[in-house]
C-alpha cells in the first residue's frame, strides 16, 4: 500500500525537486554509468570502424524506431499521469495503465528483435559490436523491467480519487523518463550513427 495520501496543491510548487532527492542519486548514477558505456563503445569503434559498420547494417532500424516511438509515447502518458495526479483527476491511474502497456510493447519488440538476431547466428560472441549491442540493450531492458515493476506497484496501489501521492507519482515518473532518455541515446548510437 502507498503511504496515506497527503493533501497536494493543484499547481506545482516553484523550484521543486521532482520525486525525492534520493531518486536523483540513482538517476545520476545510472546516467554516469551509461555515459561510460557510450564513450567506451565509440573508443572501440574508432579502432575498427569498418567492422562496426558492417555489423550495424545487420540491425533492423525499423524495430529500433518502433521501440523509440513506444517509449516516447509511454513517457507522454507518464508525464500526463503526474499532471493529472497533481490536479486530483480520476484519469491519472488510467494514464499509468497506458504507460505500462506501451512499456510492455517495448519488451515484446525487443524480445522479437533479439530472437531474430539469435536465429540468424548473431549472438553475444559474434563480434565486438554484438557483444556491446546485447550488453547495452540488455542492461537497458533490465531498467525497463524494473520500471514496469514500479509502475505496476503504483497502479495496483492507487485508485481514482481526488488525492494521490504526488511525490510517488513523480519519483516513478522520473525513473520511467530515465529509461526513455537512455534509449534515445542508445538508438542513435547503435542504429543510426555511422
Amino acid at each position, binding site marked *: 500500500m502507498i503511504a496515506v495520501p497527503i493533501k497536494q496543491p493543484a499547481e506545482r510548487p516553484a*523550484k521543486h*525537486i*521532482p520525486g525525492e532527492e534520493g531518486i536523483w542519486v540513482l538517476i545520476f548514477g545510472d546516467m554516469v554509468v551509461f*555515459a561510460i558505456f557510450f564513450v567506451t563503445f565509440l573508443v572501440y569503434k574508432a579502432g575498427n570502424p569498418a567492422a562496426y559498420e558492417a555489423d550495424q547494417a545487420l540491425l533492423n532500424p525499423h524495430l529500433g524506431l518502433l521501440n523509440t516511438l513506444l517509449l516516447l509515447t509511454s513517457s507522454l502518458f507518464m508525464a*500526463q499521469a503526474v499532471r493529472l495526479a497533481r490536479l486530483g483527476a480520476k484519469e491519472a491511474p488510467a494514464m499509468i495503465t497506458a504507460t505500462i502497456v506501451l512499456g510492455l510493447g517495448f519488451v515484446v519488440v525487443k524480445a522479437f528483435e533479439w530472437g531474430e538476431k539469435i536465429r540468424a547466428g548473431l549472438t553475444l560472441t559474434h563480434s565486438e559490436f554484438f557483444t556491446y549491442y546485447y550488453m547495452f540493450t540488455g542492461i537497458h531492458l533490465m531498467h525497463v523491467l524494473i520500471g514496469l515493476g514500479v509502475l505496476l506497484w503504483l497502479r495496483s496501489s492507487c485508485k481514482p480519487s481526488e488525492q494521490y501521492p504526488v511525490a510517488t507519482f*513523480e519519483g516513478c515518473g522520473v525513473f520511467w523518463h*530515465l529509461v526513455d532518455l537512455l534509449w534515445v*541515446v542508445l538508438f542513435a548510437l547503435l542504429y543510426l550513427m*555511422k
Partner: protein
Amino acid sequence: MTMLIALFKNRLTAIWAFLVLATLISVESVGFGANSQRLATALITLIAFVKVRFIGLEFMELRHAPLWLRLAFEGWTLVVCVALVVLNYVVASNSAP
C-alpha cells in the same frame, strides 16, 4: 473522444510531437549519403541530445527544479554530447580511405 483530446491538449503533448518529429528527422538523415556521412552523424548526435534535454526539462520537470539539479542534468547532457560528437569525428577520420 472529446474528453481524451481535452486531457492531451497541453504543452506535454506538443513536446511529445516535437520529440517524434526529431526522431523521424534523425532516422531520415542516415540516408544523406557517404559524402555527408560525417555531417549526418553529427546531426544525429545533436538531435539525440536535444531530445534528451527536452525529456529532462519537460517530462522529468527539471525546468522547475532547483538550479543545482537542473545544472547537473544540463552539464551531463552537454559533456556527453560533446564527447560523442568528438569521438564520432575520430571514428569517421579512421574510416576515411
